[in-house]
């Protein structure tokens, strides 16, 4: 049994139709049942690094909230670390850490260390354990540089690192990250992704993150779960994902002299503009080496570039099944 088990989980919301007429609202309210998630089955093992992706409103947050004890499923069973989240909320809370991407739990005007002390108190963390963790995260996340600086003076990246550390002080077994790199610049995103991986390696913490940034998933996760319209569309290893959903690759080549036509079998599209040739192909049907070979028999190449399918494109295609 994995550390997280969801079986046949459904979650529906009753939404009151907003009535303009106050009298109608008081006496005859109409409801709409919106199914946020339907028949979700997930099993996650300890130490996995799982990325949840999906369009807005797909049900990612709802699923995470059911795992972390915020929401109760309408039906089905949720089991996290052997606990049913909504039955033993506080007990589970001791073993999970949550970082909400847009909401910090750090006190704005005070040094980071002060918020840590509050967390130490709230989670009843032992003095020795606390010291050890602060030291270790100082090394892993570079916290010691700014531990005693007021949060308002920190850069976004530093704040994110501090929030990560804050969520880990009590040695949780599972870390939930809701959009952890949102709003961060490219360099900081890279930092944070590195740190998530380091934490997972060092402590074998199971990491569940939701994101819209495919690079987060590519660089950090070993498993993708994609949710669309309340259902799991995809659940598997990153490589498997790439394999199954090969998008269109492209070869861009520049020839030494003008060429009028090129003949290459099994490709999707060839476009020629003076010396610039663009070839679109599906790498399951034909690989780039074969194409280049074929191309070089028909002309001399000055320059060549291969573009792998963007995962974003793959996702966009999947998302568009709305």
């Amino acid at each position, binding site marked *: 049994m994995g550390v997280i088990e969801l079986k046949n989980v459904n979650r529906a919301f009753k939404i009151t139709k907003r009535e303009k007429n106050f009298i109608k609202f008081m006496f005859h309210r109409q409801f709409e049942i919106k199914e946020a998630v339907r028949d979700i089955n997930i099993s996650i093992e300890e130490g996995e690094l799982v990325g949840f992706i999906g369009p807005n409103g797909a049900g990612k947050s709802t699923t995470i909230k059911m795992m972390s004890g915020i929401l*109760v499923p*309408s039906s089905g069973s949720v089991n996290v670390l052997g606990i049913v989240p909504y039955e033993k909320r506080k007990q589970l*809370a001791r073993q999970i850490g949550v970082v909400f991407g847009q*909401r910090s739990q750090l006190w704005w005007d*005070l040094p980071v260390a002060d918020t840590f*002390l509050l967390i130490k108190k*709230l989670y009843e963390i032992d003095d020795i354990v606390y010291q050890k963790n602060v030291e270790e995260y100082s090394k892993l996340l570079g916290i010691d540089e700014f531990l005693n600086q007021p949060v308002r003076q920190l850069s976004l990246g530093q704040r994110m690192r501090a929030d990560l550390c804050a969520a880990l002080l009590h040695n949780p077994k599972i870390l939930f990250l809701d959009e952890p790199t949102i709003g961060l610049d490219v360099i900081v995103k890279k930092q944070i992704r590195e740190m998530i991986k380091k934490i997972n390696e060092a402590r074998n913490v199971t990491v569940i993150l939701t994101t819209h940034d495919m690079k987060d998933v590519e660089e950090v996760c070993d498993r993708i779960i994609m949710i669309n319209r309340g259902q799991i569309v995809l659940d598997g290893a990153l490589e498997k994902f790439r394999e199954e959903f090969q998008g269109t690759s492209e070869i861009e080549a520049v020839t030494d002299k003008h060429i009028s036509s090129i003949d290459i079998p099994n490709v999707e599209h060839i476009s020629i503009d003076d010396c610039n040739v663009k070839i679109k192909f599906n790498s399951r049907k034909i690989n780039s080496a074969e194409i280049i070979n074929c191309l070089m028999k028909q002309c001399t190449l000055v320059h060549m570039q291969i573009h792998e399918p963007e995962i974003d494109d793959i996702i966009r295609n999947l998302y568009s099944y709305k």
Partner: protein
Amino acid sequence: MRDFLSTYWLYIKTFFKSRAEYRVGFLFGMFANFYCYFITFATYWVLVSGIGGLAGWGFEDLSILYGLSLLSYAVSGTLVWYTVYHMGEAITTGMLDMYLTRPCGILQQMIFQRFGDTFLGQIIVTIVFLVVAFVNKVEVLTWYKAIYLIFAIIGGILIQIASMILIGSLSFWILRSSEFGEIVYYDIRSMTQYPISIFPKWIRIILTFVFPWAFINYYPSLILLNKVETTMEFVLGLLSPIVGVVLLFISLKIFQIGLKKYSGAGN
């Protein structure tokens, strides 16, 4: 209980430390609060000097009447006003979700989250006026009255806390519950600044049996100041602390129900 107090104490220290930056603003706010309520008490004094009391209530009587109301309000304010009363904010900002992922009761966390420092000024003013009033009317204070006074204050505090929790909890069902609170809790309760005997019977009934604000200060004052005229008033006075306990219990239940609804339990 000890855990709660020691944790709360840490949060309070941390809160004041974070306010240290804004020392001037903090002191100014406290002074403004102090001043504002000082003026209210002074108004009674003017009222009394000008028209010779209100329905037989002298300045000390009115001080005690208002003091009981304000003291219980301010104490409860330091605990729950900023957070629980404004539950709607916790919901829309996502703070409630954060609380739900921590190993501590939700109401407890909300109490810890923000100490109502601005109410301290009110507490100081009120205590000053209450002490002065009782010193001037020391003849009414027998030892069993003094004990009753403590229970009455506690009862009043409980009623006020319960009201703030109740109004905050409405946010689980309707938006902007604090507007509703403005009318029912603030406006209607403000009538108890005056001895409600001056109001027609139907208002007294509302303030006793519909919105029980009269239990906070009026009935206890009747007992403390030997103004009880009917057995009913005496009984209601004694019941005041109990009304506080019952109301608190109800408010906690409603909060629980609201929280369950938020999480979607029992759909």
